[in-house]
């Protein structure tokens, strides 16, 4: 009996090796998969570390295969300044994404879901190398026009009632072409436009409120319905969480919550109230675009430059006047 059992012991030990080898083998297969073509990109709230890794590299014309997964809550993935729609990244699931870049440069990827108090900090970069010309961004309008976007810009005068582009059109006064040009109006705040119109001989007999209506009409004439509609969508998706759907700056993400009291939190300054004429009527479109592009510098206002395209930023600016002027949409 004994020799027989002895001969079985090595067999039993081999079976133990097999049992322990199974998880080890699976682990190695998994590890090999990690080294394959796809790169795992883990998403966590900014408070928990954000994207990991947050710096990727790619080659022009070559496919970058990403496997996205969220380790906590629902996140979204999008590439800044691109037309590619945002991708949902549910917790624990794997979402495959293939990206191809046709120009070298630094691209920003970001979370599109309000995942936490510091959601907007959840960003990463993709450094794309290879042949081709790097796209040079245009000089920001506020820089070209020499506007100091950090200087206070209170409205010197304010209308007695909410200006209306519709009423302005019905006034029947011809506005000089230079005041209906988008390019020339970029650097003019509504107050400055109103002052320019007030100085026109044709408006001498009009009440101040009627001139404000004319100013609203002149501003509305420089943007299209499509721009305003796109701006409305962008505002709802990206701005309303802090500024509020009504633009009053009192939305949920702007309220100080327990995590918000930490040093890293976004809102060291209350979001701007777009419904406040004092704050808005002294600001030019170029100044507003500059604020969006560059961010709030020390406030909670994110740096949207690498996220929005130039057109998207102007669309957003065009929508912001909706909070000051009647019948804007």
């Amino acid at each position, binding site marked *: *009996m*004994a020799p027989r*059992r*002895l001969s*079985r*012991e090595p*067999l*039993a*030990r081999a*079976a*133990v090796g*097999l*049992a*322990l080898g*199974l*998880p*080890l083998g*699976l*682990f190695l297969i*998994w590890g090999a*998969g*990690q080294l394959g073509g*796809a790169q*795992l990109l883990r998403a966590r709230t900014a408070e928990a570390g954000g994207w990991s890794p947050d710096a990727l590299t790619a080659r022009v014309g070559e496919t970058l295969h990403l*496997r996205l*997964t*969220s*380790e*906590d809550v629902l996140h979204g993935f999008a590439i800044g300044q691109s037309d590619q729609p945002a991708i949902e990244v549910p*917790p*624990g*699931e*794997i979402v*495959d994404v293939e990206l191809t870049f046709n120009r070298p440069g630094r691209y920003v990827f970001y979370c599109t879901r309000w995942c936490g108090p510091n959601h907007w900090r959840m960003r990463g970069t993709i450094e794309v190398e290879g042949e081709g010309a790097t796209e040079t961004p245009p000089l920001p309008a506020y820089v070209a026009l020499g506007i100091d976007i950090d200087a206070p810009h209170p409205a010197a005068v304010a209308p007695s009632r909410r200006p209306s582009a519709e009423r302005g059109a019905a006034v029947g006064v011809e506005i000089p072409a230079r005041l209906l040009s988008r390019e020339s109006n970029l650097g003019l705040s509504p107050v400055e436009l109103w002052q320019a119109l007030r100085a026109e001989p044709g408006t001498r007999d009009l009440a101040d409120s009627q001139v404000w209506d004319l100013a609203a009409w002149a501003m509305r004439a420089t943007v299209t319905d499509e721009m305003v509609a796109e701006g409305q969508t962008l505002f709802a998706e990206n701005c309303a969480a802090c500024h509020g759907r009504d633009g009053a700056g009192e939305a949920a993400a702007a309220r100080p919550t327990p995590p918000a009291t930490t040093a890293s939190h976004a809102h060291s300054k209350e979001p701007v109230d777009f419904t406040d004429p004092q704050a808005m009527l002294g600001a030019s479109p170029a100044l507003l675009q500059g604020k969006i592009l560059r961010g709030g510098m020390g406030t909670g206002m994110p740096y949207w430059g690498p996220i929005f395209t130039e057109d998207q930023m102007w669309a957003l600016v065009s929508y912001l006047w909706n909070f000051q002027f009647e019948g804007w949409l």
Partner: protein
Amino acid sequence: MNRVNLLQNRALRALLIPRWPQLGVQLAALAGLGILIAVGLVGSPVGNRNLAIVVVWIAWWALLMLMLVPFFGRLWCSVCPIPLPGEWLQRGAVLGPTASSRGSSGEARAQPRRRGLRWPSRLRNLWLQNATFVGLALTSLAILTQPRTTAWVLIVLVGSAIVVSLVFERRSFCRFLCPVGGVIGLYSQGAPLEVRVVDRDLCTRHIEKTCYTGSDQGYGCPWQVFPATLRTNVSCGTCFECLRTCPYDNVAVNLRPFGEDLFLPGPRRLDETFKALVLLGSVVTYAAVMLGPWGELKAAAAAVGTTAWLVYAGTFLVVTLAIAPGLYWIATSVGRAFSRVRATSAQVLRAFTPALVPLGITAWGAFSVSFLLANLSYLWPALSDPFASGWNLLGAAGVGWSPYASGVAPALQLAILLVGLTWAGAHVRRIADELGGGLRLALPVLAFTLVPTLGLMWLLVG
């Protein structure tokens, strides 16, 4: 005796006595444990997407509480992979006694190479298991939701079992330390399965006592029990070694009526009573934390190390170590005072322990139903993609969460709780009569059994 020896069935005999079938299941469990640890460490950190969390805390725990313990007693302990590496190192063998593991006279020893110290006498009880269970329970919400923590808990358990096996004799870890082993042991008294000797006189006459000392057919009882003295399932790990080492085929694996151990006369040990009360307090607290409407409570339980968690931990300890035993002590004391039985307060306290067993096992069963049916659908995608790396082994990686039989669950839980209450009530009446206290002694204890039952009915069924 209303018992059927399952070894009379040839197929079962061929399954239970040879070592290979048991070793096969043990190795499968060990491989599973290895996979779960690996997945827990490197898989998805999202709990419901991680195989380790889903298998251990949803599937295995529910299987244990709803099937294995109530119907098969300690059968899980016979294939549990946690102590295996330690046991093999201790024995110097995987399969069975070898030449090197025999003593000078040729008999097989339980610990051929290692120190084999005897577990300290003062600790040969359930107190340490009560402590390890409570320790685990305090951090359970973090363990239950964080795969890496679960993996580390499993690693620590395996490591502890190895260390204990290399220092102390036999399965001291399982018998005196394992946090789950104590739960299984206590509740296995209700199961319709037991390992018992057929003829005790024969054991008495058997000089070598190979069931305890071992032979070349097998090891001496790893659970440090002399089978002839077995009265309940509490300390028997159903490892089946005694089936192999008894030269007279005098050990049976019996099918018996449910809860036969609960009828044994005489008071139980205080550690057993306390264990039953800790488990009752724990299940009610768990139900409140995990299934109750108090989000802050749940958040505090999960935030291990924070002030909120310290408050939660303190509350948990008060409920399980003070309130539950305190209420029980009040109930038994009031009953004793009203009935004027002769038994001492401590005797009465311990005497009703058997009634706490059906109450506890059904409470845990009802609790397990809620999370099993609600969360079982997480198992399929986790099995299909264990490392959360995009695999789809079973074609179920995309299966979404969907609770099962949610309409039936409350009725099922209610039925389980009522069975437990009735079962416990019957034992309370019986024990009160045996003590000579009658209904006056029984009533306060019956009132006590209502507390966890009604609490769970409210939390689970609404």
